[in-house]
Protein backbone atom coordinates (compact mmCIF):
# COMPACT_ATOMS: atom_id res chain seq x y z
CA UNK A 1 0.00 0.00 0.00
CA UNK A 2 1.44 3.28 -1.05
CA UNK A 3 2.01 5.48 1.93
CA UNK A 4 0.70 8.96 1.56
CA UNK A 5 3.59 11.31 1.49
CA UNK A 6 3.50 13.25 4.70
CA UNK A 7 3.93 16.92 4.41
CA UNK A 8 7.19 17.64 6.16
CA UNK A 9 6.84 19.82 9.18
CA UNK A 10 9.43 22.48 9.27
CA UNK A 11 10.10 24.77 12.17
CA UNK A 12 12.62 27.50 12.51
CA UNK A 13 16.31 27.07 11.88
CA UNK A 14 18.76 28.85 14.14
CA UNK A 15 21.97 30.22 12.69
CA UNK A 16 24.58 30.17 15.44
CA UNK A 17 27.65 32.21 14.49
CA UNK A 18 30.64 31.67 16.73
CA UNK A 19 34.23 32.71 17.12
CA UNK A 20 35.26 29.41 15.53
CA UNK A 21 32.58 28.44 13.06
CA UNK A 22 28.90 28.23 12.22
CA UNK A 23 26.33 25.78 13.53
CA UNK A 24 22.72 25.40 12.47
CA UNK A 25 19.97 24.09 14.72
CA UNK A 26 17.02 22.74 12.77
CA UNK A 27 13.78 22.72 14.75
CA UNK A 28 10.61 20.76 14.13
CA UNK A 29 7.30 22.57 13.79
CA UNK A 30 6.60 22.21 17.52
CA UNK A 31 10.07 23.61 18.31
CA UNK A 32 10.62 20.63 20.63
CA UNK A 33 13.23 18.68 18.70
CA UNK A 34 16.36 20.27 17.38
CA UNK A 35 19.09 18.85 15.19
CA UNK A 36 22.56 20.34 15.45
CA UNK A 37 24.23 20.69 12.06
CA UNK A 38 27.86 21.74 11.84
CA UNK A 39 30.47 22.92 12.08
CA UNK A 40 30.47 24.91 8.91
CA UNK A 41 33.59 27.02 8.39
CA UNK A 42 35.38 25.39 11.32
CA UNK A 43 37.93 27.82 12.69
CA UNK A 44 36.57 30.85 10.86
CA UNK A 45 35.32 33.83 12.85
CA UNK A 46 31.61 34.19 12.05
CA UNK A 47 30.07 37.43 13.28
CA UNK A 48 26.56 37.24 11.80
CA UNK A 49 24.66 34.73 9.68
CA UNK A 50 21.22 35.70 8.41
CA UNK A 51 18.60 33.93 6.28
CA UNK A 52 16.73 36.19 3.88
CA UNK A 53 13.10 36.17 5.07
CA UNK A 54 11.98 37.29 1.61
CA UNK A 55 12.95 34.07 -0.15
CA UNK A 56 13.75 31.70 2.72
CA UNK A 57 16.80 30.56 0.72
CA UNK A 58 19.55 33.14 0.58
CA UNK A 59 21.85 32.76 3.55
CA UNK A 60 24.64 35.28 4.09
CA UNK A 61 27.55 34.74 6.46
CA UNK A 62 29.96 37.46 7.57
CA UNK A 63 33.32 35.79 8.09
CA UNK A 64 37.03 36.22 8.50
CA UNK A 65 39.79 34.06 9.91
CA UNK A 66 42.66 34.72 12.25
CA UNK A 67 44.92 35.19 9.24
CA UNK A 68 42.70 36.24 6.36
CA UNK A 69 40.75 39.40 5.72
CA UNK A 70 36.98 39.78 5.92
CA UNK A 71 34.49 38.44 3.43
CA UNK A 72 30.88 37.38 2.98
CA UNK A 73 29.81 33.88 1.96
CA UNK A 74 26.47 33.00 0.38
CA UNK A 75 24.48 29.81 0.36
CA UNK A 76 21.14 29.03 -1.25
CA UNK A 77 20.88 25.47 0.07
CA UNK A 78 20.99 26.05 3.82
CA UNK A 79 24.72 25.79 4.06
CA UNK A 80 25.33 22.64 2.01
CA UNK A 81 27.38 24.69 -0.42
CA UNK A 82 28.83 28.18 -0.10
CA UNK A 83 30.12 30.73 -2.57
CA UNK A 84 32.11 33.78 -1.67
CA UNK A 85 30.88 37.27 -2.54
CA UNK A 86 32.55 38.50 -5.72
CA UNK A 87 33.09 41.89 -4.07
CA UNK A 88 32.85 41.83 -0.26
CA UNK A 89 32.26 45.04 1.74
CA UNK A 90 35.31 47.31 1.39
CA UNK A 91 35.85 51.04 1.76
CA UNK A 92 36.74 53.08 -1.29
CA UNK A 93 40.38 53.97 -1.84
CA UNK A 94 41.49 56.81 0.38
CA UNK A 95 42.13 60.12 -1.34
CA UNK A 96 45.33 62.02 -0.54
CA UNK A 97 45.19 63.35 3.00
CA UNK A 98 42.34 61.07 4.05
CA UNK A 99 42.51 58.34 6.65
CA UNK A 100 42.82 55.02 4.80
CA UNK A 101 39.97 52.90 6.13
CA UNK A 102 39.88 49.14 5.72
CA UNK A 103 37.15 46.77 6.84
CA UNK A 104 38.43 44.55 9.64
CA UNK A 105 35.25 42.52 9.73
CA UNK A 106 31.68 42.72 8.62
CA UNK A 107 29.77 42.78 11.88
CA UNK A 108 26.10 43.06 11.00
CA UNK A 109 23.84 41.92 8.14
CA UNK A 110 20.30 43.16 7.48
CA UNK A 111 18.05 42.06 4.63
CA UNK A 112 16.51 45.02 2.80
CA UNK A 113 12.87 45.88 2.21
CA UNK A 114 10.49 43.22 0.84
CA UNK A 115 9.81 45.45 -2.19
CA UNK A 116 13.52 45.39 -3.03
CA UNK A 117 14.48 41.75 -3.33
CA UNK A 118 18.22 41.25 -3.32
CA UNK A 119 18.82 44.40 -1.28
CA UNK A 120 20.98 43.90 1.83
CA UNK A 121 22.83 46.17 4.23
CA UNK A 122 26.06 45.40 6.06
CA UNK A 123 27.63 47.22 9.00
CA UNK A 124 31.35 46.84 9.59
CA UNK A 125 34.17 47.42 12.03
CA UNK A 126 35.56 50.04 11.82
CA UNK A 127 32.21 51.67 11.25
CA UNK A 128 31.02 51.61 7.68
CA UNK A 129 27.70 51.04 5.94
CA UNK A 130 27.55 48.93 2.79
CA UNK A 131 24.75 47.90 0.44
CA UNK A 132 24.25 45.02 -1.93
CA UNK A 133 21.59 45.07 -4.62
CA UNK A 134 22.21 41.53 -5.83
CA UNK A 135 21.65 39.34 -2.81
CA UNK A 136 25.09 39.81 -1.34
CA UNK A 137 27.25 38.99 -4.40
CA UNK A 138 28.68 42.51 -4.74
CA UNK A 139 28.77 45.26 -2.12
CA UNK A 140 29.15 49.02 -2.44
CA UNK A 141 29.97 51.58 0.24
CA UNK A 142 27.02 53.81 1.15
CA UNK A 143 28.80 57.08 0.42
CA UNK A 144 26.07 59.21 2.01
CA UNK A 145 27.02 57.67 5.33
CA UNK A 146 30.67 56.65 5.05
CA UNK A 147 31.79 60.00 3.61
CA UNK A 148 29.40 62.32 5.44
CA UNK A 149 31.28 65.20 7.12
CA UNK A 150 29.11 64.87 10.24
CA UNK A 151 29.76 61.10 10.50
CA UNK A 152 33.53 61.10 9.94
CA UNK A 153 34.41 62.65 13.33
CA UNK A 154 32.43 59.87 15.05
CA UNK A 155 34.46 57.03 13.57
CA UNK A 156 36.51 55.45 16.28
CA UNK A 157 40.06 54.23 16.16
CA UNK A 158 41.39 51.00 17.62
CA UNK A 159 41.01 52.29 21.18
CA UNK A 160 37.41 53.31 20.72
CA UNK A 161 34.32 51.18 20.89
CA UNK A 162 34.39 47.53 21.83
CA UNK A 163 37.46 45.38 22.47
CA UNK A 164 37.11 44.11 18.90
CA UNK A 165 36.95 47.62 17.46
CA UNK A 166 34.17 50.13 16.83
CA UNK A 167 31.02 48.69 15.27
CA UNK A 168 28.25 49.77 12.96
CA UNK A 169 25.25 47.64 13.88
CA UNK A 170 21.47 47.51 14.21
CA UNK A 171 20.63 48.45 10.63
CA UNK A 172 16.82 48.67 10.62
CA UNK A 173 14.68 49.06 7.48
CA UNK A 174 11.18 50.48 7.99
CA UNK A 175 8.69 47.91 6.63
CA UNK A 176 6.51 50.83 5.42
CA UNK A 177 9.27 52.63 3.54
CA UNK A 178 12.42 51.12 2.03
CA UNK A 179 14.19 54.48 2.19
CA UNK A 180 13.69 54.89 5.93
CA UNK A 181 16.76 53.47 7.68
CA UNK A 182 18.03 53.49 11.26
CA UNK A 183 21.37 52.30 12.58
CA UNK A 184 23.55 52.34 15.65
CA UNK A 185 27.24 53.14 16.07
CA UNK A 186 29.24 51.85 19.04
CA UNK A 187 30.30 54.45 19.69
CA UNK A 188 28.66 57.21 17.68
CA UNK A 189 24.95 57.23 18.49
CA UNK A 190 21.77 56.41 16.60
CA UNK A 191 21.33 57.75 13.07
CA UNK A 192 18.32 57.92 10.78
CA UNK A 193 17.92 58.39 7.05
CA UNK A 194 14.65 58.99 5.21
CA UNK A 195 16.19 59.07 1.73
CA UNK A 196 17.72 55.63 1.37
CA UNK A 197 21.01 56.53 3.04
CA UNK A 198 21.92 59.69 1.12
CA UNK A 199 21.59 61.91 4.19
CA UNK A 200 21.47 61.16 7.91
CA UNK A 201 20.25 62.81 11.10
CA UNK A 202 21.25 62.04 14.67
CA UNK A 203 18.68 60.59 17.01
CA UNK A 204 20.34 60.84 20.42
CA UNK A 205 18.18 63.19 22.51
CA UNK A 206 17.32 61.67 25.87
CA UNK A 207 20.09 59.07 25.66
CA UNK A 208 22.59 59.21 28.50
CA UNK A 209 26.37 58.92 28.34
CA UNK A 210 29.02 57.87 30.81
CA UNK A 211 29.21 60.37 33.66
CA UNK A 212 31.40 63.34 32.95
CA UNK A 213 31.13 63.24 29.15
CA UNK A 214 29.24 65.69 26.97
CA UNK A 215 25.78 64.30 26.21
CA UNK A 216 25.53 66.54 23.13
CA UNK A 217 28.49 64.83 21.46
CA UNK A 218 27.25 61.79 19.50
CA UNK A 219 30.74 60.30 19.74
CA UNK A 220 30.13 59.55 23.41
CA UNK A 221 26.87 57.71 22.79
CA UNK A 222 26.95 53.94 22.72
CA UNK A 223 23.71 52.28 21.63
CA UNK A 224 24.39 48.56 21.98
CA UNK A 225 21.34 47.38 20.04
CA UNK A 226 18.49 49.26 18.36
CA UNK A 227 15.29 47.58 17.16
CA UNK A 228 12.33 48.92 15.25
CA UNK A 229 9.09 47.23 16.26
CA UNK A 230 7.62 45.32 13.31
CA UNK A 231 4.17 45.65 14.91
CA UNK A 232 4.46 49.45 15.05
CA UNK A 233 7.44 50.80 13.12
CA UNK A 234 7.04 54.15 14.88
CA UNK A 235 8.20 52.47 18.07
CA UNK A 236 11.94 52.03 18.60
CA UNK A 237 13.59 50.07 21.37
CA UNK A 238 17.20 50.41 22.41
CA UNK A 239 19.60 48.66 24.76
CA UNK A 240 22.35 51.18 25.39
CA UNK A 241 25.61 51.22 27.32
CA UNK A 242 23.68 53.54 29.63
CA UNK A 243 20.27 51.94 29.96
CA UNK A 244 17.19 50.68 28.13
CA UNK A 245 15.24 53.19 26.06
CA UNK A 246 12.04 53.53 24.05
CA UNK A 247 11.16 56.14 21.46
CA UNK A 248 7.76 56.63 19.82
CA UNK A 249 8.08 58.64 16.62
CA UNK A 250 7.53 61.34 15.59
CA UNK A 251 8.92 62.28 19.01
CA UNK A 252 12.71 62.59 18.99
CA UNK A 253 13.57 62.16 22.69
CA UNK A 254 14.33 58.68 23.98
CA UNK A 255 12.80 57.68 27.32
CA UNK A 256 14.94 55.59 29.69
CA UNK A 257 12.39 52.88 30.46
CA UNK A 258 15.14 50.79 32.03
CA UNK A 259 14.81 52.88 35.18
CA UNK A 260 11.96 50.53 36.07
CA UNK A 261 14.37 47.58 36.18
CA UNK A 262 15.37 46.27 39.65
CA UNK A 263 18.22 48.40 40.96
CA UNK A 264 20.29 45.34 41.91
CA UNK A 265 20.22 44.14 38.30
CA UNK A 266 20.39 47.46 36.51
CA UNK A 267 19.56 48.14 32.88
CA UNK A 268 22.88 47.54 31.16
CA UNK A 269 23.14 44.81 28.56
CA UNK A 270 23.64 44.14 24.88
CA UNK A 271 20.68 42.42 23.17
CA UNK A 272 17.27 44.02 22.56
CA UNK A 273 14.51 41.76 21.27
CA UNK A 274 11.05 42.95 20.21
CA UNK A 275 7.83 40.98 19.77
CA UNK A 276 6.92 40.43 16.12
CA UNK A 277 3.22 41.34 16.65
CA UNK A 278 2.97 43.40 19.84
CA UNK A 279 4.89 46.66 20.06
CA UNK A 280 4.50 46.79 23.86
CA UNK A 281 6.42 43.55 24.37
CA UNK A 282 10.22 43.39 24.48
CA UNK A 283 13.00 41.39 26.11
CA UNK A 284 16.49 42.23 27.33
CA UNK A 285 19.29 40.22 28.91
CA UNK A 286 21.02 42.32 31.57
CA UNK A 287 24.68 42.09 32.42
CA UNK A 288 26.88 43.46 35.14
CA UNK A 289 27.97 46.95 34.15
CA UNK A 290 29.25 48.01 37.56
CA UNK A 291 32.77 48.76 38.76
CA UNK A 292 35.22 47.38 36.16
CA UNK A 293 32.39 46.25 33.84
CA UNK A 294 32.61 42.49 34.44
CA UNK A 295 30.08 41.93 31.61
CA UNK A 296 28.77 38.76 33.23
CA UNK A 297 25.26 37.84 34.27
CA UNK A 298 24.61 39.95 37.41
CA UNK A 299 25.58 37.88 40.44
CA UNK A 300 26.26 34.87 38.23
CA UNK A 301 22.49 34.38 37.89
CA UNK A 302 21.44 34.60 34.23
CA UNK A 303 17.97 35.96 33.49
CA UNK A 304 16.08 37.62 30.69
CA UNK A 305 13.69 40.45 31.52
CA UNK A 306 10.35 40.99 29.81
CA UNK A 307 8.07 43.98 29.55
CA UNK A 308 4.51 43.72 28.26
CA UNK A 309 3.58 47.37 28.76
CA UNK A 310 6.11 49.33 26.79
CA UNK A 311 8.78 49.30 29.48
CA UNK A 312 6.80 50.50 32.50
CA UNK A 313 7.28 47.19 34.31
CA UNK A 314 9.83 44.41 33.83
CA UNK A 315 9.52 40.79 34.87
CA UNK A 316 12.42 38.43 35.57
CA UNK A 317 12.51 35.27 33.41
CA UNK A 318 15.00 32.78 34.86
CA UNK A 319 13.05 29.51 34.95
CA UNK A 320 15.41 26.86 33.57
CA UNK A 321 18.60 28.87 33.69
CA UNK A 322 21.29 27.98 36.27
CA UNK A 323 20.45 29.52 39.65
CA UNK A 324 23.98 30.59 40.42
CA UNK A 325 27.65 30.42 39.51
CA UNK A 326 26.84 30.96 35.82
CA UNK A 327 28.95 33.82 34.58
CA UNK A 328 28.15 33.84 30.91
CA UNK A 329 26.30 36.57 29.12
CA UNK A 330 24.79 37.30 25.71
CA UNK A 331 26.23 39.49 22.97
CA UNK A 332 24.21 42.03 21.05
CA UNK A 333 23.08 39.92 18.09
CA UNK A 334 23.03 36.64 20.06
CA UNK A 335 19.40 36.85 21.22
CA UNK A 336 16.42 36.72 18.93
CA UNK A 337 12.77 35.80 18.54
CA UNK A 338 10.92 33.71 15.99
CA UNK A 339 7.49 34.56 14.58
CA UNK A 340 5.66 31.70 16.31
CA UNK A 341 2.66 31.90 18.62
CA UNK A 342 3.63 32.00 21.39
CA UNK A 343 6.90 33.59 20.36
CA UNK A 344 10.01 31.45 20.64
CA UNK A 345 13.11 33.07 22.08
CA UNK A 346 16.68 31.97 21.46
CA UNK A 347 20.00 33.08 22.84
CA UNK A 348 23.63 32.08 22.53
CA UNK A 349 26.09 32.59 25.35
CA UNK A 350 29.69 33.62 25.62
CA UNK A 351 30.18 30.13 27.08
CA UNK A 352 29.02 28.40 23.89
CA UNK A 353 25.52 27.35 24.92
CA UNK A 354 22.28 27.85 23.01
CA UNK A 355 19.15 28.34 25.12
CA UNK A 356 15.56 28.46 23.93
CA UNK A 357 12.08 29.16 25.20
CA UNK A 358 8.87 28.10 23.41
CA UNK A 359 6.69 30.31 25.58
CA UNK A 360 8.03 33.84 25.36
CA UNK A 361 10.61 33.29 28.07
CA UNK A 362 8.53 31.60 30.80
CA UNK A 363 10.68 28.45 30.69
CA UNK A 364 14.13 27.98 29.21
CA UNK A 365 15.96 24.90 28.04
CA UNK A 366 19.45 24.33 26.71
CA UNK A 367 19.64 23.19 23.06
CA UNK A 368 23.40 22.91 22.68
CA UNK A 369 26.50 23.14 24.85
CA UNK A 370 30.24 23.27 24.36
CA UNK A 371 30.23 25.38 21.21
CA UNK A 372 32.80 28.16 20.84
CA UNK A 373 31.94 31.64 22.10
CA UNK A 374 28.70 32.64 20.39
CA UNK A 375 28.59 35.95 18.56
CA UNK A 376 25.16 35.79 16.94
CA UNK A 377 21.95 33.77 16.89
CA UNK A 378 19.31 34.39 14.25
CA UNK A 379 16.12 32.45 13.56
CA UNK A 380 14.63 31.92 10.13
CA UNK A 381 12.15 29.65 8.45
CA UNK A 382 13.69 28.04 5.38
CA UNK A 383 11.56 27.75 2.24
CA UNK A 384 10.38 24.23 1.57
Amino acid at each position, binding site marked *: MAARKRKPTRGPTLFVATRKGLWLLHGDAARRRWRLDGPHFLGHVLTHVVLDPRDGRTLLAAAKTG*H*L*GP*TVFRSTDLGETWKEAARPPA*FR*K*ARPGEAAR*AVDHTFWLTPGHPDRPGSWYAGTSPQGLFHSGDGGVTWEPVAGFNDAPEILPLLGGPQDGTPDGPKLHSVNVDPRDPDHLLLGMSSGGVHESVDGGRTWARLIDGMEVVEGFDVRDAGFHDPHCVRLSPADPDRLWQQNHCGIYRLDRPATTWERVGRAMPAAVGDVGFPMVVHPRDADVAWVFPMDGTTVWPRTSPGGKPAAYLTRDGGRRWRRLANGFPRGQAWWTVKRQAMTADAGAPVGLYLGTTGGEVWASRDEGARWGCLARHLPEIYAVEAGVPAR
Partner: protein
Amino acid sequence: MTGAAGRPPLEAMRVHVPTPLRSYTGASEVEAEGATLAAVLADLDRRYPGLRFRVVDEQDRLRPHVRFFVDGEQLFDLGRPLRPGAELFVVQALSGG
Protein backbone atom coordinates in the same frame (compact mmCIF):
# COMPACT_ATOMS: atom_id res chain seq x y z
CA MET B 1 51.17 27.46 -18.05
CA THR B 2 53.86 24.83 -18.25
CA GLY B 3 56.71 24.87 -20.70
CA ALA B 4 57.79 22.11 -23.07
CA ALA B 5 59.79 20.30 -20.42
CA GLY B 6 56.89 20.42 -17.99
CA ARG B 7 58.48 23.24 -16.06
CA PRO B 8 57.05 26.71 -15.70
CA PRO B 9 58.29 29.26 -18.24
CA LEU B 10 60.96 31.52 -16.87
CA GLU B 11 58.64 34.40 -15.94
CA ALA B 12 56.31 32.21 -13.89
CA MET B 13 56.87 32.03 -10.15
CA ARG B 14 56.28 29.12 -7.91
CA VAL B 15 54.04 30.19 -5.04
CA HIS B 16 53.85 28.21 -1.82
CA VAL B 17 50.37 28.57 -0.37
CA PRO B 18 49.58 28.29 3.36
CA THR B 19 46.66 26.16 4.52
CA PRO B 20 44.21 29.06 5.09
CA LEU B 21 44.38 29.91 1.36
CA ARG B 22 44.12 26.40 -0.05
CA SER B 23 40.34 26.61 -0.24
CA TYR B 24 41.11 29.02 -3.10
CA THR B 25 44.03 27.29 -4.79
CA GLY B 26 43.25 23.66 -4.04
CA ALA B 27 46.99 23.04 -3.88
CA SER B 28 49.93 23.84 -1.66
CA GLU B 29 51.98 25.06 -4.58
CA VAL B 30 50.77 27.02 -7.60
CA GLU B 31 52.17 29.21 -10.35
CA ALA B 32 51.73 32.89 -10.95
CA GLU B 33 53.29 35.54 -13.14
CA GLY B 34 54.35 39.06 -12.47
CA ALA B 35 57.33 41.36 -12.12
CA THR B 36 56.28 42.68 -8.72
CA LEU B 37 54.49 41.28 -5.68
CA ALA B 38 51.45 43.37 -6.70
CA ALA B 39 51.44 41.82 -10.17
CA VAL B 40 51.83 38.30 -8.80
CA LEU B 41 48.94 38.82 -6.39
CA ALA B 42 46.81 40.24 -9.22
CA ASP B 43 47.59 37.17 -11.30
CA LEU B 44 46.78 34.87 -8.38
CA ASP B 45 43.45 36.66 -7.99
CA ARG B 46 42.67 36.11 -11.67
CA ARG B 47 43.37 32.42 -11.27
CA TYR B 48 41.78 32.09 -7.84
CA PRO B 49 39.12 34.82 -7.51
CA GLY B 50 38.82 36.36 -4.07
CA LEU B 51 42.27 35.33 -2.85
CA ARG B 52 43.86 38.77 -3.03
CA PHE B 53 41.37 40.56 -0.75
CA ARG B 54 41.97 37.98 1.96
CA VAL B 55 45.66 38.99 2.10
CA VAL B 56 45.66 42.64 0.94
CA ASP B 57 43.18 45.25 2.17
CA GLU B 58 41.29 47.80 0.08
CA GLN B 59 44.04 50.37 0.67
CA ASP B 60 46.65 47.99 -0.81
CA ARG B 61 48.20 47.19 2.56
CA LEU B 62 49.35 43.68 3.32
CA ARG B 63 47.16 42.19 6.03
CA PRO B 64 48.96 41.76 9.36
CA HIS B 65 48.78 38.00 9.78
CA VAL B 66 49.97 36.94 6.34
CA ARG B 67 53.65 37.30 5.42
CA PHE B 68 55.43 37.09 2.08
CA PHE B 69 58.98 35.81 1.65
CA VAL B 70 61.17 35.61 -1.46
CA ASP B 71 64.66 34.15 -1.36
CA GLY B 72 64.52 34.13 2.43
CA GLU B 73 63.67 37.82 2.64
CA GLN B 74 60.37 39.18 3.92
CA LEU B 75 58.52 41.57 1.58
CA PHE B 76 56.62 44.54 2.98
CA ASP B 77 56.03 46.44 -0.24
CA LEU B 78 53.61 45.42 -2.99
CA GLY B 79 55.73 47.29 -5.52
CA ARG B 80 58.83 45.30 -4.73
CA PRO B 81 60.34 43.89 -7.98
CA LEU B 82 60.69 40.12 -8.10
CA ARG B 83 63.31 38.30 -10.10
CA PRO B 84 61.98 35.89 -12.74
CA GLY B 85 61.76 32.35 -11.49
CA ALA B 86 61.88 33.32 -7.83
CA GLU B 87 59.85 31.30 -5.34
CA LEU B 88 57.29 33.12 -3.27
CA PHE B 89 56.40 31.77 0.15
CA VAL B 90 53.12 32.98 1.60
CA VAL B 91 53.09 32.25 5.32
CA GLN B 92 50.43 32.51 8.00
CA ALA B 93 51.61 34.34 11.08
CA LEU B 94 49.39 34.24 14.12
CA SER B 95 49.52 32.90 17.61
CA GLY B 96 46.95 32.62 20.38
CA GLY B 97 44.04 30.35 21.21
